């Protein structure tokens, strides 16, 4: 069995599973945030009206909560949702609630790795589509809606059809100035936004072995944009070391069997990769940066679970050091822990000296909700994951998705720029 089949077999108490089997899998960890949490509570209300007992969760120690989409609250509905979320964790005895304004908090998918919330081999579900991110730790990590999360919270398990797995093999080491974001954009450009639908996208090969855990997180994050059920990388010693450096001492190497089967194998040469963008209005609309349209940008956005991890900010700092931005540029570290490291290591000074505004962790602008949305006809280059119409603001605004290095180089020139071409 491959790693996903092994995880789902273990979680459903079976010795063997195969693609298309339907299993009820026991869940090891579940996450809700300030959008899905109130959504789940709404489901609880409906159930209560039908006489279902919703007074206790199956296991509050396996549940954790993030505040990320609508913090800091821009208006009262968002503020009330945070109050609802706080009451939820209090009433149900959930201890792991990362609260805005109280130490460590940030984007849920970032906390999943920064706080070592998920272990290799886990079944981890979250009320957010980018839950796929955390598959980089060797877990089966999958996004679900409010009804499904409510079901998990009450029953501790959920149904899955065992997915077919496509294996994306990266050979060799990525050249300088090419990042994991470029690799996943290349893949989505090739297979399309439904190329992974209902399937697992697994990443491996010497290029992945070579990659940091944070780069692997970027790959798995955007498997969602290919429609995948989950993205995954087998957990090697790097993952174990990464998690133990964050206080999790029980993580173990976890891989598929030697005779694991894959539906399709795609092979990529790292040396042939180069900086890419996804043009409006789809993540599959991929172009080489050097051949991208020569548009006047209004904004560069460096944030989100996809593109504001510590490693991303370090790459941005290399580009921005000693430079001045030509367009409105915002950098929002994805968690407070990352923010703090960026401060301690001088990155924030580099950003501020370049003229950038540094903001608090939030999903706000990435999903067009608040904290810097785009006006009509504005054009943005962004390290985020989606560029559908209206995604980051006005329905007639445009977003180009790129790596942090490309977004930083473009901030300096005001045009879509390959970091290799920056003087």
């Amino acid at each position, binding site marked *: 069995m491959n790693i996903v089949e092994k995880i789902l077999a273990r979680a459903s108490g079976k010795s063997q599973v195969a693609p298309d089997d*339907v299993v*009820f899998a026991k869940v090891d960890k579940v996450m809700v945030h300030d959008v899905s949490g109130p959504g789940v509570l709404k489901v609880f209300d409906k*159930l209560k009206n039908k006489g279902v007992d919703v007074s206790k969760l199956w296991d509050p120690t396996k549940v954790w909560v993030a505040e990320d989409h609508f913090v800091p609250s821009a208006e009262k509905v968002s503020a009330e949702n945070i109050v609802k979320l706080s009451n939820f964790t209090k009433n149900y005895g959930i201890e792991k609630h990362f609260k805005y304004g109280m130490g460590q908090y940030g984007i849920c998918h970032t906390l999943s790795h920064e706080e070592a919330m998920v272990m290799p081999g886990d079944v981890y579900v979250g009320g957010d589509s980018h839950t796929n991110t955390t598959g980089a730790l060797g877990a089966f990590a999958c996004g679900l809606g409010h009804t499904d999360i409510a079901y998990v919270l009450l029953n501790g398990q959920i149904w899955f059809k065992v997915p077919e797995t496509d294996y994306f093999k990266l050979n060799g080491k990525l050249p300088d100035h090419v990042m994991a974001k470029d690799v996943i954009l290349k893949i989505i450009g090739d297979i399309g936004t439904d190329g992974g639908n209902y399937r697992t996208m697994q990443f491996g090969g010497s290029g992945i072995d070579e990659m940091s855990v944070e780069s692997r997180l970027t790959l798995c994050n955007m498997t969602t944009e290919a429609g995948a059920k989950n993205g995954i990388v087998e957990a090697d010693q790097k993952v174990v070391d990464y998690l133990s450096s964050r206080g999790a001492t029980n993580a173990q190497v976890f891989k598929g069997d030697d005779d694991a089967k894959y539906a399709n194998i795609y092979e990529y040469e790292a040396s042939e990769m180069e900086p890419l963008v996804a043009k409006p209005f789809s993540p599959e609309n991929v172009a080489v940066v050097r051949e991208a349209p020569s548009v006047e940008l209004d904004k560069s956005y460096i944030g989100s679970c996809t593109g504001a991890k510590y490693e991303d900010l370090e790459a941005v700092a290399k580009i921005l050091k000693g430079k001045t931005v030509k367009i409105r540029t915002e950098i929002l570290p994805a968690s407070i822990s990352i923010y703090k490291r960026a401060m301690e290591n001088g990155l924030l000074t580099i950003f501020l000296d370049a003229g950038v505004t540094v903001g608090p962790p939030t999903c706000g602008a990435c999903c067009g909700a608040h904290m810097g949305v785009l006006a009509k006809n504005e054009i943005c280059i962004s390290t985020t994951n989606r560029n559908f119409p209206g995604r980051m603001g006005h329905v007639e605004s445009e977003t180009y998705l790129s790596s942090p290095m490309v977004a930083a180089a473009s901030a300096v020139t005001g045009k879509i720029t390959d970091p290799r071409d920056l003087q």
Partner: protein
Amino acid sequence: MKGNVVKYERDNIDTDVIIPGQYLKVHDYAELATHAMEGLDPDFHSKVKESDFILSGKNFGCGSSREHAPIALSHSGVKAVLALSFARIFYRNSVDGAFLLPIEIEEDAYKGIAEGDEIDIDVSKNEITNLTKNQTYKMKPFSDIIGKIIDAGGLFNYKP
């Protein structure tokens, strides 16, 4: 199940246009309905009627896990979405929450059914009849688990 069709002849209708991100904070189902399809068709709310169906191309509902998407459509009166294919989370949210039926169709139905046509969906026969044009098309049968959850009226009523 009879109703009229609202047709969007395009692929990849994503959750950001079905219900834009700024409304994710809203959990009042009736209010969400007033913003359904706002990113693509601001007139949708005024033109859609109870028991209508949406007809569209490939990968309907791609994007986010927001259950707001099937909720907004369902509370606008939409009983089923007919599409060439669906993104997985939208599909599963529609079924597990018993909001609407996600019905996979073939090219003949996609091409044959026009905006405003009255159709009759017979899930027991996996058949769609276009009453306006007097044509019949096959729908893709629901898989075993999906059929059972639909019959039960959603995941919470389903006994494994």
